[in-house]
């Protein structure tokens, strides 16, 4: 069975990429072995304490917390991109595995297909 890596590199709410990529991850995890890699502002997708009520938008970040239940194996983050934003893994609402650049390179090569914006 092929392994799919979903990369998320957009922040939440500014565009629809975050929400729609999450939909693709949920679908992927139903049919294949999937992992998720958060790069750049994609890390903000899982920042704790999001409240989009005043924006009349949906707080879909909670769905990230359920990804394990859907069968997603691991959520990885770039340690460098995390640090550049002044964030630590404790600030995120899901358990993530931070990777250095070589770790990200390895992850890309371990997967057969890479999806995501």
């Amino acid at each position, binding site marked *: 069975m092929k392994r799919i890596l979903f990369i998320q590199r957009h922040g939440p*709410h*500014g*565009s*629809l990429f975050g929400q729609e990529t999450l939909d693709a991850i949920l679908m992927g995890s139903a049919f294949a072995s999937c992992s998720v890699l958060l790069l750049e502002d994609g890390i903000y997708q899982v920042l704790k304490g999001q409240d989009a009520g005043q924006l009349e*938008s*949906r707080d879909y970040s909670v769905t990230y917390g359920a990804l394990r239940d859907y069968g997603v194996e691991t959520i990885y983050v770039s340690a460098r991109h995390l640090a550049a934003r002044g964030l630590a893994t404790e600030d995120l609402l899901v358990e993530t595995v931070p990777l250095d650049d070589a770790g990200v390179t390895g992850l890309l090569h371990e997967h057969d297909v890479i999806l995501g914006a």
Partner: protein
Amino acid sequence: MKFAIVVHGAPYSSQSSLSALHFARAALASGHEIYRVFFYHDGVLNGTALAAPPQDEIDIPSAWQALAREHTLDLVVCIASSLRRGLLDETEADRYEKPAANLAPGFVISGLGQLIDGALNADRTITFCA
């Protein structure tokens, strides 16, 4: 004070139309006038009559229509941008022999002259970029 509001982004795809909508509501609530809302680039897609967003999400094209009904707003989508992106009123659908029209009531298709007219005649012009 009279505002011209320019919207460059498609609804949902970019937050710009939601921001513009919030700004427009706040301007009207503060007693200001909205001279025109001009939808340019992908912004013209705010004028679609066919969007069917999930029920727990805001329906942005409908929200513009509701605001326009309440305050008699001039909602103009740029014709050149609309033609490339497949947004047509009855007249344009006939002219280009297309099978349907999809411009929502409350919006009008017009030319770029309306952008310049807004910039010249409003006291302030603010752009919400994609």
